[in-house]
């Protein structure tokens, strides 16, 4: 192990790790919004909305994230969408994880006991009120863990944007492996930083889970 090399490249990797964090956080925000809409669409009474939600989730979960990024970044200009690598990566990752998160949200909503909604309706709550005041607060607790799992997958999946030349952790690792021929050392440095990010995400999820636990 060439520790001097690891020390020398470390600052570059920290900078790259910040890009990984930045794109992950922004994609997470986009993903959550899209996921909430898609879950609502899939749970909707309108057949059209259900169809839209189902197609979105099925297409984005049924094809590789890499291809989705390539369609957006390389194919986009053909249909008039010109995006910088970072923007394309952020939108691609967000739309991809949104499909997975939609299922997490839908699962949580569906696992709230039906009796809760029935009771709320029977004491005169409207459909929306029932959802807003009775079902969602309970579902919110149930979705913390699955959404956390999705978020960890998103952080690791963000490595894919290196293929559309976003200079993040994996891109930087690849460059340094090419220039130093020390794959194990470089992997070690990059892995350490990924582990730190994943660890922080896991801790935050734990904290939220405990904070909102039903005792």
């Amino acid at each position, binding site marked *: 192990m060439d520790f001097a090399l690891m020390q020398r490249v470390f600052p570059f990797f920290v900078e790259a790790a910040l890009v990984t964090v930045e794109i992950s956080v922004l994609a997470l925000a986009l993903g959550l919004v899209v996921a909430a809409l898609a879950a609502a669409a899939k749970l909707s009474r309108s057949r059209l909305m259900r169809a839209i939600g189902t197609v979105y989730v099925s*297409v984005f979960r*049924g*094809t*590789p*994230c*890499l*291809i*989705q990024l*390539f*369609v957006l970044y*390389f*194919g*986009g*200009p*053909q*249909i*008039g969408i010109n995006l910088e690598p970072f923007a394309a990566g952020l939108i691609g990752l967000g739309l991809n994880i949104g499909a997975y998160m939609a299922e997490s949200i839908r699962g949580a909503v569906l696992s709230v006991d039906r009796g809760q909604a029935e009771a709320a309706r029977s004491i005169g709550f409207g459909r929306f009120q029932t959802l807003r005041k009775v079902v969602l607060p309970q579902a919110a607790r149930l979705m913390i863990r699955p959404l956390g799992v999705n978020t960890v997958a998103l952080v*690791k*999946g*963000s*490595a*894919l944007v*290196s*293929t559309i030349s976003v200079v993040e*952790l*994996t891109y930087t*690792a*690849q460059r340094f*492996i090419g220039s130093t*021929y*020390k*794959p*194990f050392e470089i*992997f070690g440095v*990059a*892995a350490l930083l*990924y*582990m730190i990010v*994943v*660890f922080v995400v896991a801790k935050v999820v734990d904290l939220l889970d405990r904070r909102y636990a039903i005792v």
Partner: protein
Amino acid sequence: MQGLDFSVVLPYTSLLWTGAWWTAVLTVSAAALSFVFGILFAVAVLYAPKLIAWPVRFVMWLFMGTPLLLQLFLIYFGLVQIGIDIPALGAGIIGLGLHFAVYNADVLRAGIVAVDPGQTEGARSIGFGRWQTLRHVVIPQAVRNTVPPIGGNMIALLKESSIVSVIGIAELVHSAQLGISETFRPFEFYITAAALYYILNLVLEGGLRLVERKVEVSR
């Protein structure tokens, strides 16, 4: 901005089918590897002496916390550095196989622990050794009970196999890129590739549902 014209893909049909075929081969080989090593890792973590169990646990932890793409770079460039020169296809299968072996091991470990202790006690009491009990009684039940989550991992594997295109394996994404390099039509080719992945995904899901039903009936 140019108009879309999917007919540009037609002359490359056989190229794309070949790519899809290699994606299937890659997925099946890596799946087999991930299953075998998944069982080995799970057993090592649960029953092996600490000297073996701890390194296995460390590798599992490392592989679960880092991206597959990074692991592929390590395996593809790293093995060469320690004098093992394997072709890209081998590196791709090993990388995908090990990555998903770790996820399978995680599932199988839980599955093994969940097998009723009475099963082990029963096997031991009729004279099975420790290894025999594991091999003939516990693991078959654990595998049967974990078919759905392992199937989920295999579906993820199919999609993640697209990543090995970056180390130059001629699978579906790579075929699409070949077509693009001659026609400059990324949108049409990547959408076609996505459709082929979607079909492969449906086939795999169908196959897994058959396996699940078979396991369900024979229980």
